């Protein structure tokens, strides 16, 4: 191989080692702790939160929803992301190898406490308006439960949408329910439990089978 400049190796990761896509955000701390236990040196990742690419450790960091994209295209061999992200991007061709157990959250339908806005809209208008950052999960859930829903995609704080009358309810991820209750919302239905998952690129899963299997065994062995 020629040209080992940083740019080249970014496009073509070192073939003898796995490149791991690591999610920043809520799963970041537990993921780094897991990598530490697997013997990956994460000191530099912890000490520098502007840098995104850590070649020595074989780590690239990104927002969780980008992890399946990088892994599908083989820019990372394996990655860690939430099941919520995978459910929202079902067309991504990645292998889901392990439930890592941490980052446990509930995908829920929530609405203003006390006034049954969802039920009322359903009864009188024949449809509900639902705000969410997860339009596909939301659409699937309402379709599966036989209700017509108008999905309103919002990017920021979803809790605001029902309070201002934009929507009757929301579909969102919650760990403790605190943000919901602080905003006068309550959980009406639970859709699915989401945890962190180990995913792999389909080609790397064959061409780097030994290293991926060793990693999976190591993670399983420690009962994560």
């Amino acid at each position, binding site marked *: 191989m020629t040209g080992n400049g940083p740019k080249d190796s970014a496009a073509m990761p070192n073939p003898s080692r796995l490149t791991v896509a690591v999610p920043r955000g809520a799963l970041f701390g537990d993921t780094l702790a897991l990598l530490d236990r697997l013997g990956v040196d994460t000191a530099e990742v912890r000490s520098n939160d502007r840098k995104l690419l850590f070649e020595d450790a074989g780590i690239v960091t990104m927002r969780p929803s980008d992890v399946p994209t990088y892994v599908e295209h083989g820019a990372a061999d394996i990655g860690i992301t939430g099941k919520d992200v995978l459910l929202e991007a079902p067309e991504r061709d990645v292998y889901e190898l392990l439930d890592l157990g941490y980052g446990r959250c509930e995908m829920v339908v929530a609405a203003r406490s006390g006034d049954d806005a969802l039920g009322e809209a359903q009864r009188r208008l024949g449809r509900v308006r639902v705000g969410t950052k997860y339009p596909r999960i939301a659409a699937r859930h309402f379709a599966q439960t036989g209700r017509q829903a108008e999905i309103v995609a919002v990017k920021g704080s979803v809790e605001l949408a029902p309070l201002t009358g934009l929507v009757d309810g929301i579909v969102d991820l919650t760990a403790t329910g605190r943000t919901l209750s602080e905003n006068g919302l309550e959980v009406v239905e639970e859709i699915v439990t989401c945890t962190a998952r180990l995913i792999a690129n389909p*080609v790397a899963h064959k061409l780097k089978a030994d290293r991926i299997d060793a990693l999976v065994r190591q993670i399983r062995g420690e009962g994560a």
Partner: protein
Amino acid sequence: MIHPIPPGTRDVLPDEMRELRAITTALGGAFEGAGYGEVFTPALEYEEVLRTGDATAAGAGYRMFDEQGQVLALRSDMTIPIARLVATRFRGVEGPLRLSYAGHAYRAVAHGSGQQREFLQNGIELIGPEGAEAEAEVIALTLAALDEAGLARHRVGLGDGALYRTLLEGLDVPEERRGPLLDCLSQRDLVTLGRHVDELGLQPGARDLLMRVPELRGGVNVLEVADGPLGGLAREALDGLRALMQALSERGVADRVILDLGLVLELSYYTGAVYEVYDPAVGFALGGGGRYDDLIGRFGDPRPACGVALDVQRVHIAQAAEERMR
């Protein structure tokens, strides 16, 4: 003023076209040199013909009415039209037949997915012979043709399309539970697969078997690992793969083949060995194929067959990436 083309289709300009042409010439030359004569079939077929080949193949594509009110469809792969061609144009002709093709196929795409709606496939079909020797010929020729096209590190992943289904039957998994398990396997969602397997309430040995098979990948030693727990249940599939690895080794290409016992392909007409082609420079398969012994019979002229189809644009991406790494 913007005049768009549909997402998933593309215009090709001279610089790229020259390189694509070099690839199709190299692949086509290798196929022709090995005795595979090129055939051409129409992009438009009667929908019923495509449906005869594979119930899902016609549904996903593009349909239209002709001036008689007949339903036409754009072909979604090349193998079904060639099965029709063999059963009609070669009826009564002694095999084996060696055919090659280069043509466009069409599939529906998810919005914004970046998938190709129209794609150029270059491939071969070997019709007549049963067994490992034929499959080895197709796989070895695939590897050699890609050498000609400028790839160097490409590999073939090899499995058996009927293996997991046979296992489920052998373990008496109720019929209605098999579908979800096979779906999980084809999407390689091993987490959900594990949940479904747990719900079956099988003996620990049977449970381990269903969980371990999709993870078995590697060289010929994988078959020995599988033989203990699998031996009795999937004897036919394992013997087939062993014979095929032997035939590949005689052709000197076994070290470029990776066994992958969890490999399942999307198309339902495969009956035995299935394979995919990879290059470490790119994260997606360059093509795939397998044995489809029942397909030509659906058109009235039963003949065993196997083949492979390569996606020319993907081969080009891999070739360009390999060139950059040199």
